[in-house]
């Protein structure tokens, strides 16, 4: 048995070749070509989704059997309908006492049913647009669907986020990685910015960031009660990204009073003033999706481009973060990887590892309770 174990980790990279797939939900037109330089907010593909559908129970409205509905229709399937158009009219008695139905919606008449007496009008097509998100070059075109964009970028994966894609310059609002992000650190000139704090962000700080019109707020941790107050409901499962809360929120470490990892903080602080693209969308199921902060770097900047693996092997000396109590949030290096099972305090048997904490102390932790810190 080799002393290697596969363990997921969150990526924090000062420079990496980053690729993003920008795909439409349905087939449409791609607006760029391979090799084009694109800006984050630029549209790269668009499409029209079939419009909303309005069913009209014509048989009921005109008090007639469903089988008579087709003969009373003044519009045929495929006809354009505007608000105020008369859709159907009954023949009445000797041409008198006719009743009719005037459309309250516009669109196209899709179907007329002689079985149910129902008429269906489809509304105007709905436009959908996909933006570049990452400022860079178009590396590949996916015909009728979208494209792949590539750029050298600094890349930080968070552990959990709220809200979708947002853009803005990075603004530091904490003295160091263990500095809580409180209300007084948020100033009006942070409008449109991606605010970076250190330790736990408070509810008051989030509210203030929203009030000044910040794009996003990033910090090490958050208290469960604060996120509940911010959202107005309790989160049941970690599938987020579609919240419409006026601000994208990302935490890098976890829930509770927890400081941002030093390396993550130092990297983000070094990028102050640069334009970032962030996405709070998180999906923790099979096919996991974590929130991210991407800061495109100029092509000519010097520096190594790191690999893009998002998981690795536990090896002696590898930097790890403990991700469960009783040592939650502590950082250290793998000291030893004993092969045999170890009996935990809970009574369970599990494979463990020894972690040498930064303080010099050594602790035994189940392998499932650490994550690699990606270089």
């Amino acid at each position, binding site marked *: 048995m080799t002393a290697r174990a596969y363990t997921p980790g969150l990526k924090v990279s000062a420079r990496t070749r980053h690729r993003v797939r920008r795909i439409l939900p*349905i*087939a449409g037109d791609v607006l760029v070509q391979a090799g084009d330089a694109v800006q984050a907010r630029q549209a790269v593909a668009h499409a029209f989704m079939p419009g909303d559908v309005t069913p009209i129970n014509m048989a009921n409205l005109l008090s007639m059997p469903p089988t008579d509905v087709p003969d009373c229709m003044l519009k045929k399937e495929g006809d354009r309908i505007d608000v105020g158009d008369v859709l159907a009219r009954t023949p009445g008695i000797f041409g008198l006492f006719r009743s009719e139905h005037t459309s309250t919606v516009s669109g196209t008449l899709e179907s007329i049913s002689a079985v149910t007496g129902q008429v269906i009008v489809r509304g105007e097509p709905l436009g959908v647009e996909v933006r570049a998100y990452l400022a860079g070059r178009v590396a590949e075109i996916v015909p009728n669907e979208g494209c792949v964009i590539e750029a050298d970028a600094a890349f930080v994966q968070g*552990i959990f986020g709220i809200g979708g894609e947002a853009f803005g310059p990075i603004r530091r609002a904490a003295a160091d990685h263990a500095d809580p992000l409180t209300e007084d650190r948020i100033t009006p000139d942070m409008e449109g910015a991606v605010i970076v704090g250190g330790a736990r962000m408070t509810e008051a700080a989030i509210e203030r960031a929203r009030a000044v019109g910040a794009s996003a707020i990033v910090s090490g941790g958050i208290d469960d009660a604060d996120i509940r107050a911010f959202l107005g409901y309790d989160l049941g499962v970690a599938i987020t990204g579609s919240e419409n809360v006026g601000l994208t929120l990302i935490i890098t470490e*976890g*829930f509770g009073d927890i400081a941002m990892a030093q390396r993550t903080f130092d990297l983000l602080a070094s990028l102050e003033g640069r334009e970032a693209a962030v996405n709070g969308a998180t999906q923790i*199921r099979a096919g996991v999706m974590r929130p991210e902060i991407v800061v495109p770097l100029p092509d000519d900047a010097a520096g190594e481009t790191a690999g893009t693996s998002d998981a690795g092997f536990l090896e002696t000396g590898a930097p790890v973060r403990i*991700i*469960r109590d009783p040592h939650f949030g502590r950082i250290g290096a793998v000291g030893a990887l004993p092969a045999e099972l170890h009996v*935990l305090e809970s009574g369970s048997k599990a494979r463990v590892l020894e972690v040498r904490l930064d303080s010099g102390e050594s602790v035994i932790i189940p392998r499932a309770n650490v994550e690699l810190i990606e270089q």
Partner: protein
Amino acid sequence: MSRIDPDRVQVILATDCGSTTTKAILIQKIDGVFRQTHRGEAPTTVEEPFADVTMGVLNAVTETQELAGRRLIDADGRIIQPASGDEGCDIYISTSSAGGGLQMMVAGVIRQMTAESAKRAALGAGAIVMDVIAANDKRRPHEQIQRIRELRPDMILVSGGVDGGTTTHVVRLAELIAPAKPRPRFGSEYTLPIIYAGNADAAPLVADVITDGFDLTVVDNLRPVLERENLGPARDAIHDLFLEHVMAHAPGYDKLIQWTDAPIMPTPGAVGNILETIARERGINVVGVDIGGATTDVFSVFDGVFNRTVSANLGMSYSISNVCAEAGMDNILRWVHIPMDARELRNRVKNKMIRPTTIPQSLEALVFEQAVAREALRLAYLQHKEFATTLKGVQRQRTVGDTFSQESSGETIVDNMALNLLVASGGVLSHAPSMRQTAMLLIDAFEPEGFTTLAKDSIFMMPHLGVLAEVHPQASVEVFERDCLIHLGAVAAAAGSGKPGQACFRYQVRGDTLEASGEMRVGDMKLYPLGLGETARVAIQPERGFDFGAGPGRAVERDVEGGTVGLILDARGRPLQVEGGVEGWVRALELYPEGSVA
């Protein structure tokens, strides 16, 4: 499959492709009896960068072949068939829940009648039911269409009307679905399968409406008359379409389908299959539960009637936060015997949600997780009881004798007093450090009454055996009885309520290894050792107001089988009153290490 001669089968290989792990088991005929001999597992490889499920299957089988010392894969990476000497297997079968399993939407005319029957058919086939559309579901037509558009089901089951009944309402359902043009999960090339299992007279009219972009299959009505369900044809059609459409689009399944000797089944469908088989063969009532990270499945067979429910957001990792939200922190903490800080626990729950693979290291964390599990199981069982009912909407002739009876249609058929066997599976139950904890979790959450046998699925083998039951029922039953279940023991529990400390029942236990007698007071629990394979006769004399199945205050005698835990006597009453009792119960069953109880 016709080409398999059951009498010649010696070696069976089975895999279950879960969303994270692919598990392989090897079954061999030893001394004329089928036994599960070896197992292996490997990460599932449906997602990028592998995107081929067979890689994970081969990895899991490779581990099995190494442990078994039997070559199962040839040089071309194919499973060797048939078995000869110490190579290969005679039957290869598989189940799958990878990629989120089978997700369906169902529709029916009346929510409590045909729509509910359709839901039962879909759940029974192993699907996750995303929504139920019905003419009377209180949503307006445009809201229903909007909902259908937003969901991305793998397939839709439409029912409605008894044969010869309404056609208009059924066609109206089809008219909601057709223009909604729901986008399937597997991209624009996929034609969405729709199964129609409603009023036969409406079938041609439905076919006129559901045309472009859909693949319509018409089967027999699942509710031909109000008094009877006929779920078989719809369930079979779901399985066929699951293979033809859903599986065929999942990466690597085209290959896997060709390898197997029986159709690949959705995992929960297979679990249901084996429980139904066992209940039928032994003539007993069974409840099975599988508690996972995201969902909890409950299966029951009472008087031959099978039901399955999926509680989509009750689970121990991905959905743990939802369990806390639904049950309430107070309800969870009532099961905890050591002091804990609620605010910190809330943060811990969220941390488990975002890092779902972590395991409890401290005793406090374990006690808390097991408390959450009790509530998740309790809520899932409540949902199951509400769903597993007699058919609703059935007119019954009432006689004078029924005057004082409150029975009506739509009553739950789940009867804890009639329950014979309660089977547990899923990480928190099967990996609990002590089997006593598993037994206690089951008793606390399900509240069995009278005499009930408790067991756990040793290595989550039920899915494999469910498919095997289709091709080789004898092998399936033999392995189920010998290797799949680990018997925990039996519980004898009094139904009824009384004041703590008041007399509840007297008992006498006689067996080869155990002789005991005594009196139990309300609130008491007692554990007697009764090992695997040992039996004892238990005689109970309940006090007035307490029932063991023969009626309040009436004596009962039963033979019970032992297990790894033993015989548990439970005088806490039903429904269970939790407040104030937990510490005593933890002590009585020595659930946690000494020192954890004040």
